[in-house]
Each structure stands twice: as C-alpha cells, then as structure tokens.
C-alpha cells in the first residue's frame, strides 16, 4: 500500500486492550490473537515461498529449506543485459513461479490427515550453479492445469502474470543468445495469447529488435513508429526508436 503518510490522526482512540477493556473483553481480544495457522501449515507456506521460517520464540528456531528459487532468480537477473528493464519490474514474479511448482507438488502428494506439528523437510538438493544457456521454449503453462482444481484457485489471480513473465523471459533469453527467429516465435506466442497482456509493450519492443536483427527492417520500423507514437516519452519508446533508427520525441 502506498500511502503518502503513515501518521495516525490525533483523534484515533486508544485501543481497547491498552485502555479500559474489562477483564473479559481483554481475554477475548487476547484470544483473538491466538488464532493462527498450524505449524505444519506455516511450514508449507514458507517452503512454497522459498523462505526460512522461524517457528515460535520458545523453541529452537527451525528452518525450512528454501528450494532452488534463489538460484533461479539470481540466474535470471544475470541474464538480462539486453533488456534489463523488462525484468527489473517483474523479477519478483519469478519467485512466484516457484510457488506454483511447489504447490503443484503439494497437490500431487496424497493428503495427509495429520501432518507432524513441525515438519522440517530435508534440505533441497543444491541447485545448478548456472542457468541453462539455452532454455527450452516455455512449456504450456502448468498453472492452467493446476487451476482446474478448486484447491489452488487462489493462484489464478497471479498465475497468468507468471505465465506472461515466463514467456517474456524466454524471449529475452533467446534474444541474448542471438536467436532472433526463436525470439520472434516466442513473442508472437505471447502477443497471441495475451492481446491485452501486462507486458505487451515490452514484448513488442523485443519483437521490434528481433525484426531488425533478422533483416525485416521495414516491418520493424513500421511497428516502431506506431509503438513510439503510442508510448511517447517512455523509456521503452526511446529504446525502440534507438533500435529501429528512429528519432525519439
């Protein structure tokens, strides 16, 4: 939440717990704070997010091993030289991508009626130190299949964004690898699938650069002119104008 000010208004009343609550009211309010997810549920959430979880303050801190997500994020960050700004805004989504996978794994497991109170999974095997040089075309998004289950319908709001980011990352990677035709194929897939996609401008910008690289300059410039007109003043418009040999205004 981006609020201009976090100041509390002077008229804000004292909280009941800090003022004149009766003993019974106090008991009720304190009890409300005791409602919490089970330790097993907290562990599952932490694991899905790839973060370590400290369980309680009265017991030994327990760490849930993070998956390979960090490595994946780092590798992605390192591979964005050509179109860094495309990834900057959405890098965090890659983290989210791991959630679907982890969650899908959870879905695949047979239901456990009574998980242990504190389950500390074995540490994940070390992730490869380097990302594959040439990732395959993104597979059909797993989230689509996963969302058919009501259990994971909560993922729907962001799963599409993750799919978009995955496609865009693939396009950028292909561009970095000098595979312009493959880049175009991925971008076309993105634009077909997400005609109003969040990252359509970024995808179009990549498309224009790829078109220039494969020698389809007339097509690239026509696209670039339209892009610059529609995105006047944006960093991407300047970049596109530069790439297509236009003058950005």
């Amino acid at each position, binding site marked *: 939440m981006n609020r201009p000010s976090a100041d509390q208004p002077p008229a804000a009343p004292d909280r009941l717990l800090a003022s004149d609550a009766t003993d019974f009211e106090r008991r009720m309010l304190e009890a409300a704070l005791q409602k919490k997810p089970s330790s097993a549920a907290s562990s599952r959430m932490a694991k899905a997010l790839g973060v370590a979880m400290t369980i309680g303050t009265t017991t030994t801190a327990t760490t849930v091993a993070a998956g390979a997500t960090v490595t994946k*994020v780092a590798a992605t960050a390192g591979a964005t030289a050509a179109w860094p700004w495309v990834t900057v805004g959405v890098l*965090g989504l890659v983290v989210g991508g791991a959630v679907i996978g982890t969650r899908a794994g959870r879905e695949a497991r047979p239901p456990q009626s009574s998980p242990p109170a504190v389950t500390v999974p074995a540490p994940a095997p070390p992730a490869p130190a380097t990302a594959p040089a040439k990732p395959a075309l993104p597979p059909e998004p797993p989230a689509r299949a996963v969302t058919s289950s009501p259990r994971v319908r909560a993922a729907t709001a962001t799963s599409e964004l993750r799919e978009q980011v995955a496609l865009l990352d693939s396009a950028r990677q292909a561009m970095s690898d000098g595979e312009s035709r493959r880049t175009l194929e991925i971008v076309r897939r993105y634009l077909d699938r997400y005609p109003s996609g969040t990252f359509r401008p970024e995808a179009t910008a990549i498309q224009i650069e790829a078109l220039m690289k494969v020698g389809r300059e007339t097509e690239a410039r026509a696209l670039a002119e339209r892009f610059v007109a529609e995105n006047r003043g944006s960093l991407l418009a300047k970049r596109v104008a530069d790439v297509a040999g236009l003058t950005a205004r």
Partner: protein
Amino acid sequence: MAAPAERIPAPAVAEVDRTRLESIFNAHHVSVWRALRRRGLSAEAAEDATQETFVLAAEKLDAIRPESERSFLIATALRVAHTLGRKTVRWELDEDMDQRLSANRDASDKRADMQLCDLVLSKVDPDLVEVFVLYEIEGLTSPEIAELLQIPLGSVASRLRRAREQFRDAAARIEKSLQKEGNS
C-alpha cells in the same frame, strides 16, 4: 537542446530481497492468514491465499515501506480473498455453541476463549466487525484502514465506535450468561 536518446539508463537490477521477504513472512503471515480466515475462507483456502499474498508482496518488495508492511499485506490478502469471490461472513455459531463453550471452558481455557471471542465477534454487525478487528486486534491505524477499505477516515471512526459498543454489549451479555451457568 535535444539530447540524443542514445543510451537508456537501465534501472539498477535489484536482487530479490529474500531476507526481507523472509522477515515479513515470519512477522506477518499469521495476521494475513487470520485476516483471510475472517473473510470466510477455510483454513486450507486461507493457506493458499496467504501464499498468494506473499507472492504478490515479493513482486513489490521495493515499493513496500517497512512501516506499511502489515497494512500492505492485509490489503493484498483482502484483495486476494475478493478475487476468490468470498464475502465477509459472520461466524456461524449457534445457541448450541454457547453450551459447548461453557462445557469447554474448564478443560481448555485458551481454546474456549478463542471460540468465545468468535462468538462475541459474531454478534457485531458484519459491516462493522472488520474495522474493529483491523484496529483492535491487528493493530492497523485508522488511515491504514481507511485506505485499505476505501472508506473515509470519518467512517472508520464511526464504524469503530459502533463496533466497540456492539462488541462490549455482546461481551457483557456472554460473560453474564457464562456466570449464570457457572452458578447453576
């Protein structure tokens, strides 16, 4: 003088701040889960929605001010709940629950208190209880609640005042009822 657009300065590539994500997860996931449960989600659905909330937070870590983490997360959680089509629901406790509660109290005070609290809150108007919970239990400030629920600050104050009255009335009635049962 027109500056040539030769080089676009790329924003600094920020490493995903996993430490911060970890920190806010540990600090706030219980509050987030609780907020989702109060929105009527099952424990299982609340778990999924809590994950979604932190995924969304991970995307915007840089934009979340440290002092606004909790309100950001709860606001996000409520949006996630909204996308699930859930509405705020009253706690569905009936008269039988009062009986069970009184029987439970001796055996497990803590658990009984939680159920009692649900019972008291169920007596508060659904339109008011959210403000009450966010302010009195989750510790959000009035401006945070105003922004979160997209209502004027004055409405927060008035809803809170009315919610408090109803909460205190309900608590007094239930306390009295428990005392009566204890004496009988």
